[in-house]
């Protein structure tokens, strides 16, 4: 999608629905930072814009825009232009490299988990770097998803490549395990192509060149899978959005369009099998009512709500969609001291809605949403595919 600001009719609908604008006066809103500022940039005027950082990159502005204005993309262009004048802080550099932190944390468990739970270290990080001490840093796993996968015997079937993402690997492998098992139930042989972090945390912290490096490496290895005849699936909407949209539109990695063509969100992929009559629908009954939170980046993938469709195939199960909105965490955004409160304010309505339902469990595709919702409301959280695996029984 090419940025075209003339499509913008200044209706301000993006402003009306921007969760950050609602939460704080520090951000002037997507209309100003996107299409309005674009006019200045076209005249090569640099815009002093500390407030650009307050965008949490949920892309709701693009979702609600009735005129297809690529607002978030323009906004990123703003950040790129401004970033060349002001290099990112050490804190942002560190958070951008969360995949390295996770790798290190996983290697150093249990010391790392103990250290991040230690009040004094958190106080130091808070005062010294501006990483808010109130937010819980998730516990790392020594036995990564990849190790779990390698420890299993090979299965046979049609090959399919799985992009699992850092969170699944180092922090919570259970959704990844569910993805592998569900795909195997449907006769696929899952492979794990070599993969790095998708690069979204780097993009979110204005480290575009470093993100492009990771992107190129991922592209190379994923392209190989595609050339060997395997389609790619992902279970994290944010990683998937980065692979299929940001590599091409934001990072301008040559040849990235191949990913958009061959990469599927896991529920989308399974739903497609269902369309073709190839989905194993041998589900047992689950007589429960669950609540579902739609991640913003799933909306940004613009393909409806495939997980809801998929779960509706399970007999007895009722899934209710929670009111729309951003949970506020937005990757590394909610970890920053100056943004912790904003992030909480952004997600307030969702948390309120969850408490109102008395739900004990919330389903969401995105790990950041699951983390934030879990921490702020105390409910258990699951990926939709975990529910599907449960329906296959064991």
């Amino acid at each position, binding site marked *: 999608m090419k940025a075209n600001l003339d499509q913008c009719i200044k209706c301000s609908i993006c402003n009306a*629905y921007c969760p950050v604008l*609602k939460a704080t006066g520090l951000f002037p809103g997507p209309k100003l930072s996107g299409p309005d500022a674009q006019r200045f940039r076209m005249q090569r005027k640099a815009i002093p814009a500390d407030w650009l950082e307050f965008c949490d990159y949920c892309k709701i502005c693009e979702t*609600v825009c009735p005129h297809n204005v690529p607002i978030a993309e323009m906004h990123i262009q703003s950040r790129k232009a401004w970033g060349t004048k002001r290099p990112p802080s050490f804190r942002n550099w560190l958070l951008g490299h969360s995949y390295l932190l996770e790798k290190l944390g996983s290697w150093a468990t249990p010391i790392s988990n103990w250290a991040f739970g230690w009040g004094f270290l958190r106080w130091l990080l808070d005062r010294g770097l501006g990483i808010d001490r109130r937010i819980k840093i998730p516990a790392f796993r020594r036995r990564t998803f990849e190790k779990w996968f390698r420890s299993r015997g090979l299965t046979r079937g049609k090959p399919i490549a799985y992009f699992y993402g850092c969170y699944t690997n180092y922090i919570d492998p259970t959704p990844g395990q569910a993805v592998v098992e569900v795909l195997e139930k449907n006769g696929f042989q899952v492979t794990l192509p070599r993969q790095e972090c998708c690069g979204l945390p780097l993009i979110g912290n204005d480290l575009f060149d470093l993100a492009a490096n990771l992107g190129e490496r991922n592209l190379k290895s994923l392209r190989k899978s595609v050339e060997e005849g395997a389609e790619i699936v992902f279970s994290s909407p944010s990683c998937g959005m980065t692979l299929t949209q940001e590599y091409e539109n934001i990072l301008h990695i040559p040849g990235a369009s191949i990913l958009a063509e061959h990469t599927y969100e896991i529920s989308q992929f399974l739903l497609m099998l269902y369309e073709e009559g190839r989905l194993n629908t041998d589900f047992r009954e689950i007589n429960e009512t669950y609540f579902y939170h739609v991640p913003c980046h799933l909306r940004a993938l613009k393909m409806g709500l495939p997980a809801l469709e998929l779960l509706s195939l399970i007999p007895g199960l009722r899934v209710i969609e929670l009111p729309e909105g951003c949970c506020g965490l937005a990757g590394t955004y909610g970890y920053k001291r100056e943004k912790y409160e904003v992030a909480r304010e952004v997600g307030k309505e969702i948390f309120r809605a969850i408490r109102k339902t008395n739900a004990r469990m919330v389903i969401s595709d995105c790990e950041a949403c699951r983390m934030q919702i879990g921490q702020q409301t105390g409910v258990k959280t699951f990926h939709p595919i975990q529910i599907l695996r449960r329906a296959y029984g064991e």
Partner: protein
Amino acid sequence: MIIARGMGSLPLTSGCIDGLGYFPNTSKTPLSSPFTALGQLRQNDPHHPYVKVGQEEILSALACFLELSRSDGMPYAGTFDSNFLIPTPLGTFHPTCLVPETMKSGALSLPGRVLLLGLAGLKDFSPFLAVENLNLLHSQGMIAPSFRAGDMEGLDLGGKAINGLNLARAFDEKDFREKFIKRAQTFLRPGERLGLPAILGFHSSFEAWNDLKEKMATEIFEIPMPPPSVPGIRLYNLLKTHLRERGVRIFMGVSSLRPLAEDRRLKGFSLGSSQKGPFYRASAFVLATGKFVGGGLDSDRGRIYETLLDMPVLYPQDRKKWFNPRLLGTEGQPFNLFGVEVNEHLKPIDPGGQAIYSNLFAAGGIIAHADSMSEKSGGGVAISTGYMAGKLAAAMK
């Protein structure tokens, strides 16, 4: 299931439901009742969507809407048989048919004295400008009430910008309302009604309005403001919640849809730019994409086209006839009449008069022959055609 490219146009509207404000649209005086003009409309303009829907369906559609608004806690007032004249933020009047209860006592037919209270910093509403224009109309005998302006200063929203949305959210909070009431009391003289910009609550307008009315012991009304309009968003949220509670799925931000059709029957759509799906199927469809602002119609230099299914659009080939050089002339802009032609069942038809898809209906602005801008009929046409198209589509299940 609703599939949409974006939010739709409700946040751009006043939140009022226009019936028929001017007929013929060049008329200088607003209609007192849309209902009584229907007969004449049938003669002058037999293709008008109102004529296709018919009087009975229009009335039951609006009754259905009123019932919905009441049961869901945001009641509307009015009937198709009469028009309200309500003030605009510029101090002109707008004829409309159904208004939120919170705007009712702003009707310009109610005599008495009115204080219009502005909030310093709120750029979209100047009470002084509005009052000057309204009092001019009053002195010409065109409206009943007389107006006086006040401006409240020093409102604090905790550092957030003073705009309609932030103010509306602040009015949801009881504490903020208490503070506001205390300060507003000092402006109000005995016997005066109070007019405020439409910011009395984002989630619970009716509650905030009732609360204010009781505590200030006077009639209070809201004046709709320029977009993004709080009453428009309230209406959107009302409808969305209503539908979602009944299990309707709403997909928004879907920019590419590929239709799947077979022998004049629409089977479904696949979402996403590549041909991957997921696929969404249904037994019948209602096209409600609006005109140019809504995104249902678009144009390039030589032609005007319907954006989703590329169905034939009614418009003159001569490009000069698309526009009226008098930008805001009462006769309106010709392009506001463009749209798809439908038969008496609201099915889009080709120039030969045959339905393009046997299970596709149209509703709202995408239907040709109604210039909602100049005749002030947007909401009424939308609700009545939507009601009829929805019923017909449901019958095909």
